């Protein structure tokens, strides 16, 4: 065991995306110092370029058929990891596009913003390949800590500070509890590599301690994914933090949390599904229902989207529960298809949410307010942004022909496929919830289309970068809606690599 640590054979190609990212981070820092005050916006250019380079490396690795493994399997760069890295990088690229104008116009430290952003992304790419408790923990913290700072980035605004402190405290507590769980897992199995844990755990008898240990280690991720009992931070942080950060939090870091959960469950605790599927099942149900119900009465659009992301988190947990049910009946192929639907939902959710936030940023630049009523009458004078916003909201509500329907469809498919009373009830609860969700999404649409515009309203101008982000998101949402195999195949290929 010690020998392995002596001089580990490092496969630099496998690490190339991370290396590229680190290089960009350093470059951004240095540029921020060198460049004069006026041209600090160049750092955003460097950041986006760096992300694209890293994306290029991911593509190169993609058509490398061999699976790259490092550190004895603790850091696997397989099709699954590459797919997720690709997603994180694209999401970050779009976030950068969104925040270029936001940060540029506001009095923010531009360089630091992108530095922190890229650090968090680095954490995510590492998370995708992490197959070891330690690397999982390190990746999770690398994602979270920069976002604590980002959440409080508007230094003089009370609400931003408040967002940061709440996010920080709950985050810290959750990671502490998660660590406590991990330590117990380590104690029980003596292993930190997930594959080894899997063997040991399935060998262990069903003991109370093991159940508590598994649950505690899962809890950390439930916080990140903002599942219900742990979601308290989400609404306040989303509302307080600057909007691009909120977008980043709701899409990328939530995805990071889900990927972590996927890794630890799929590679670690798959064998003992019988113990934890009921918990996930309850979490999913609670998240969906509470998230949707609270969102009904929201007046602030960002806060509404916060609760909507809690609810969408709940929808994403449904395939987890289905996976759990299937594993407990030892139907591995059904389990794998449930796994697939998580990935599909993740990809689609990312595109939808980023698009929605992009629109909100575009509109907020002129109305300067997050209230839903500020959207009223948008259709009369700026139809394009209205149509785009309606597309994203319709997609979030799961209405064809936009991508949302396919995400909801795969979620329903996983639930029904798992079958049994559990699968069907969760499916019906999801069905009812999607109707409730449709109500508040359409409430915004109603404001935009049906209500008369305020008399002093002028049309919304969309700056270049934001326009690019919108094009990417709309393109993805409509394309996947009409031809879902784009994401469907990615998920299929991703889950084929391992048994």
């Amino acid at each position, binding site marked *: 065991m010690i020998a392995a640590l002596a001089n580990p054979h490092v496969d630099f190609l496998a690490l190339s995306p991370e290396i590229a990212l680190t290089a960009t981070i350093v470059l951004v820092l240095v540029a921020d110092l060198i460049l004069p005050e006026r041209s600090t916006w160049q750092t955003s250019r460097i950041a986006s370029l760096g992300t694209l380079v890293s994306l290029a490396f991911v593509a190169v690795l993609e058509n490398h058929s061999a699976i790259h493994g490092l550190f004895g399997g603790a850091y696997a760069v397989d099709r699954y990891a590459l797919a997720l890295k690709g997603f994180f990088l694209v999401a970050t690229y779009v976030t950068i596009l969104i925040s270029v104008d936001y940060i540029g116009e506001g009095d923010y430290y531009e360089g630091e913003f992108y530095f922190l952003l890229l650090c968090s992304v680095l954490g995510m790419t590492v998370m995708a390949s992490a197959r070891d408790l330690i690397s999982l923990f390190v990746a999770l913290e690398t994602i979270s800590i920069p976002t604590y700072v980002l959440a409080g980035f508007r230094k003089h605004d009370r609400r931003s500070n408040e967002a940061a402190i709440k996010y920080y405290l709950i985050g810290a507590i959750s990671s502490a509890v998660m660590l406590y769980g991990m330590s117990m897992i380590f104690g029980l199995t003596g292993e930190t590599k997930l594959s080894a844990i899997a063997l040991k755990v399935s060998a262990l008898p069903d003991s109370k301690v093991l159940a508590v240990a598994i*649950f505690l280690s899962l809890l950390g991720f439930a916080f990140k994914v903002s599942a219900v009992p742990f979601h308290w931070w989400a609404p306040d942080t989303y509302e307080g933090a600057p909007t691009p950060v909120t977008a980043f939090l709701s899409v990328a870091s939530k995805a990071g949390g889900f990927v972590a959960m996927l890794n630890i469950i799929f590679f670690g605790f798959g064998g003992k599904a019988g113990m934890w599927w009921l918990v996930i099942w309850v979490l999913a149900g609670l998240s969906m229902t509470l998230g949707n119900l609270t969102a009904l009465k929201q007046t602030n659009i960002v806060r509404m989207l916060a609760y909507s992301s809690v609810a969408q988190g709940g929808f994403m947990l449904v395939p987890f529960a289905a996976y759990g049910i299937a594993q407990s009946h030892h139907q591995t192929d059904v389990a794998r298809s449930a796994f697939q639907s998580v990935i599909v939902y993740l990809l689609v959710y990312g595109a939808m949410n980023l698009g929605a936030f992009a629109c909100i940023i575009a509109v907020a630049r002129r109305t300067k307010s997050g209230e839903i009523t500020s959207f009223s009458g948008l259709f009369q004078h700026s139809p394009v942004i209205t149509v785009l916003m309606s597309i994203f909201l319709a997609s979030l509500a799961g209405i064809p022909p936009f991508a949302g329907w396919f995400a909801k469809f795969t979620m329903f498919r996983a639930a029904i496929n798992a079958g049994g009373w559990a699968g069907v009830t969760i499916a019906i609860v999801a069905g009812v919830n999607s109707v409730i969700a449709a109500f508040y999404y359409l409430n915004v649409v109603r404001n935009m289309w049906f209500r008369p515009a305020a008399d002093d309203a002028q049309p919304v101008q969309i700056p270049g970068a934001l326009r690019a982000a919108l094009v990417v998101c709309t393109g993805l949402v409509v394309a996947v809606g009409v031809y879902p195999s784009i994401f469907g195949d990615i998920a299929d290929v991703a889950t084929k690599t391992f048994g």
Partner: protein
Amino acid sequence: MLMNHFWFLDHAWLIPLIPAISYAVILLFGKRYGERAAWIGLASIGSAWVLALGTVVQWISHVNDSEGAEARGVVQSIGGMVRNIRLAAESKLHVEPIIHSTTWFQNNGFKLNVGIQIDGLAVMMLFVVTTISLLVHFYSTEYLKGDRRFNHYYAALSLFSASMLFLVVASSTLQLLAGWELVGLCSFMLIGHWWEEKPNSNAALKAFLTTRTGDIGLLTGVIMTFFVVQKYATMAGGKGTGSFDIMKVNEAAIGLGEHGGSKSLLFWCAAALLLAIMGKSGQFPLHTWLPDAMAGPTPVSALIHAATMVVAGVYLGARVYPIFYQGFHIAGGTINPMAAIGGATVIIGAGLAFVQNDIKKVLAYSTISQLGYMVMALGVGAWTAAIFHLFTHAFFKANLFLGAGSVSHSGANHSFDMKHDMGGLRKYMPKTFITFMIGTAALIGIPFTAGFFSKDEILAVAGENNFTFFKYLGLVGAVMTACYMTRCVYLTFFGEYRGGHADAHGAGHDVGHDVGHDTHAYVSDDHATPIHDDHAAHAAHDLHDAHDDHGHHGPHESNFPILAPLFFLSFMSIASGYLLSPMLKIEKFALWVEPHFGDDKHFNVFEPGVFKAIDPILAVAAGVVGMLLAYAFYWKKAYGENITERNGALRAGKNFLVNKYYLDVLYTDIIVGGVKGPIAQAAYWVNQNVIDNVLRYTGKGAAGAAQFVYKYIDQKGVDGVYNGSASGAGALGGLARKLQTGRVQLYAFTVLFGLGAIALLLVIFN
């Protein structure tokens, strides 16, 4: 080609087609022709009439040919009716109907055939409908001159003739149903011709809805005929499918009736179709729409509500008679629903006719009563008598109606109110008076008029098929008919011209002819009948005719277009009787008209009544007694120069009566008083308050129920559930928002508390 013996019969489908074309022509180009639209209508119905005559002639020759040698010496004249026909031979070989039908559409192995079926019945109806329609077309040119929607009227009239003829030639029950409803539509349009006034459109609506209620029966009945055929086809083990063809329906009915099997299907089918007949032919209790339908122009009443449409029900009964015959076991002689309803309607119709002050209402109720006769005849198995009565009734009733129209048009400046605007018109309008008297005579059944032969026939056959109860019912009906008709004649043509202030009335001929003015006139009426019927309808609609300009200087004789039809109809009222009278051994009508129901050796229903001397005497006696009663009541009191001197028969009756003078007093006080007084009042009160209101209240009830259902069940109940769940979710959302307190340590507490709870659960359960 014309000379081909069957050309007319084969091309009978042309008859309904021509008026239909004229309807389209008038509708599309009517505007340009203005008044001359009438001529298009007249031309079309005229050619249809000629074709109909052709079918009649060819049918008679066709029947006679198949008769074989005995029937030689028959003189035929195209124009008039057959005058002196020698008796036909005894053996009746029934001639097959001529059927041409094409498959209209196919639906899963079932073929709907549409086409024509021409047999005696159809030919007779063709002749009646086209004749009356022609006369009415001619009559209307004068009667409705200057009406605002002159060409609409003629369009509707042509459409009506077309659909009635379509109904008559129908070869399948479904086609019959189509014609039936189209005829209902035309009556709706024609009754509501002056739809500006609410009462008129109300009357039209009421007519359509009441007949439509009857149509439930027709709809289900026709469906059942389909399955009767299917049952019969599959009963013999065959894999046959149902069909609507009338021939197949009749065959199946006979077959099922004979081979036993469940009679329930047949009974329900008969019952359903009876409901339809009640609706259409104004049988009790669905008769209330007919008197209200008098709101339409008089020629319409003559054509539709006397001669053609209302008999459609009887025609349906005759067409698919085996269903009723087997369904209601008419052969058994027991009281069956059909006869019962017919009988009831006879009495009620006659009773109600007593108390009307509106000449058209009297005739309307009399039509109901006569229709009652026909249905009763069908009910007692007197198929030929019923159809014969239909044949004769069409003529004399149309005669009466058109007469009434002429009286109102020229005599009482468009009012039909006998009590108020008429009286003593015989001096002013001798020709109309004569024709009206002939019509009345036929209706009452004075010997040697058409009515006498047909009504007598019904009573004779009723007696023969040992439905004695209905025979005497018929006689009582005859008495009452005689009575109310005499009253009507007296009030219209005898006594002083009460329309005295007609001049002033005439002068004030502006539109302001308010309704109120009429009602108070009745206060002084001796038997103070609370007539609150829709007389307003008449008064109101009068003002439409009022605008015709020919100077209104008191009652005068109508001009030629009105009188010509009257003459022809009065001739027919007498001549048409001679086609079938056992007394004179003439059975031509039976021979020509009796249908062919497959091998009918077991159908004794078609033998014309064996002549027994007693029957006609009884009928005549009933008629005379009725007349004398009315005469005694009016003339005696009126002391006016009375009719009896001039009419031989009456004089004989009067002398007979005078000897029994004291008896007469007895009659007037007890019978007339009795009959006229309470019974009639009661009957009328029942009719107005109970039956009519029942229908009105069902309408209101439905509306009330609708209000309730809509307000409470739909808006509050079903919708309430959905709105409730929506606001419930909203409330829950509000509650959930309160959980988010904003205090971070509380969040931490809930996170850790949740964690602890779940861990505890895991520990307990695992």
